[in-house]
């Protein structure tokens, strides 16, 4: 049996280019570290990444974009957005045991990508609606807390 293995029939993969990396390099790529990003978010500016080619944005690490581009720049996003989907967490993981019940939401920022965050004082589904305007509120609490705007 030949010719039905994985990869057969697909377009040719991009040609291999000779690696230019220094094999003795010991420094991490500066964009690998998430600390700067997390610090900026903690200080109130939602910070992430934007592909300069296709303009896909994300908070999650993006060293290369799904479009293939390596031209990724840090980007600041707006603090306000709208709830796109949410749940009410009654049972939560250990960092959040003092916060239940609360909403965990997927939020589309007005100028920026989707992010996730938690919204306090939501005890049941009727307490929040898809489309609800929310604003990022940095606090001493864990994670990214949003409040109804």
């Amino acid at each position: 049996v030949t010719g039905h293995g994985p990869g057969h029939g697909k377009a040719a993969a991009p040609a291999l280019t000779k690696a230019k990396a220094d094999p003795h390099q010991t420094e991490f790529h500066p964009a690998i570290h998430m600390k700067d990003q997390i610090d900026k978010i903690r200080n109130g500016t939602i910070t992430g990444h934007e592909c300069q080619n296709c303009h896909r944005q994300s908070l999650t690490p993006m060293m290369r974009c799904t479009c293939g581009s390596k031209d990724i720049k840090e980007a600041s996003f707006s603090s306000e957005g709208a709830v796109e989907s949410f749940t009410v967490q009654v049972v939560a993981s250990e960092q959040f045991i003092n916060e239940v019940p609360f909403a965990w939401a997927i939020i589309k920022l007005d100028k920026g990508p989707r992010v996730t965050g938690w919204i306090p004082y939501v005890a049941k589904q009727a307490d929040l609606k898809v489309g609800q305007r929310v604003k990022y509120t940095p606090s001493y609490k864990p994670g990214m807390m949003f409040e109804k705007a």
Partner: protein
Amino acid sequence: VRPCGPGSRRGIPRGSEALSETGRSLPTMRRVCVIGAGSTKYGRLKETGREMLTEAIMQAFASTELDPRQVDGAFFGNAFAVTERQGHLGPLIMSALGIPDKPASTVESACASGGTAVREAFINIAGGFADVMIAGGVEKVSQLDTLTATSYFAYGSDFAFEGGNGCSFPGLYATMAVAHMGRYGTTEEDLAHIAVKNHANGAKNPKAHLQKAIKIDDVLKSMVVAAPLKLYDACPFSDGAAAVILASEEVAKKLTDEPVYIAGSGRAGSIAALHDRDDLTTIPGTKLATQQALKMAKLELKDVDFAEVHDCFTIAEAIATEDIGFFKHGTGHKQAREGVTANGGKIPINPSGGLKAKGHPVGATGVGQVAETYWQLLGEAGGLQVSGAEVGLTHNVGATGGSVAVHVLRRGAS
């Protein structure tokens, strides 16, 4: 590129017919069969993980005439063994089986660990590195309290951006449910029908964690876990182990005239963080893995007689059956209500009871799906039997679809 893939011997190029148009050497895949299967009961078990996995493998060997010494190696799906203060499961199990010289590794792909173990064992045989492999899986979580278990499960998400912002595992699927409801008008009652159907199946499965038929009201009135998902929308935390023994066609044909083949194997991924995807109501990896598996099997979806799909939550079954392609997007939630997915319906989904009722011992789940499908194709599924089953599909998902494994099994060769 020199053709030095597994099909060639010691790097010596084979004939030019083995080269693709791009000059890349193509694997000459060998056919792979399932020749034995075993499983513990799923539920709250008193045994440890190593005891459960050893038992499942012993059962699998008892179901075949093969001597364990013919095994070339093993892959075990497992996610949380360290919570039992035990890692490095592979050699423990192989030593107990009397084959300590044979290599065994644990593979972790969250809830798809089991399906991934099957895939890796398949690749070893298909690629010519082995003739007989064990694919096993085990999970032991009942020693953990709910808070600890919830925390560990949340580590399967992109924790810095999902779990760390407060979501639990049910929370992730709840947001998928809300998105599906918003777009397609899916109701909590639609989802409840999926739970009722899977419990009806699980009630007949002696290995199931929850062997109890339930009613729509039981689901709708159960405790909210992560709104809109309730206790009976969710699979239980289960202990359990499952194992299948895979062999090359050559070995299998010495043992049986009509082997069960893994005719197709597919593995794909999706963007790890749910919120980074364009659409919350679909898992792209499911589509890709299904296409791969069907293409390899040279089968179409209409050839599939039944499927064991990853229904960690009721909404997950609705979405899985849409992404696999059994139903159009936005209609998966209606099928249980209309009896289409019941055993005896047009396309039985989760005749074993699924994760929902049979249970979800994380690392074992994907292996258990293959075992259940194997028993179905042999006609040995007892009260769960899908009549006339010749082709079955298994679908195993890690987290919200970051990992997906799909296998297509068929009775007899094509």
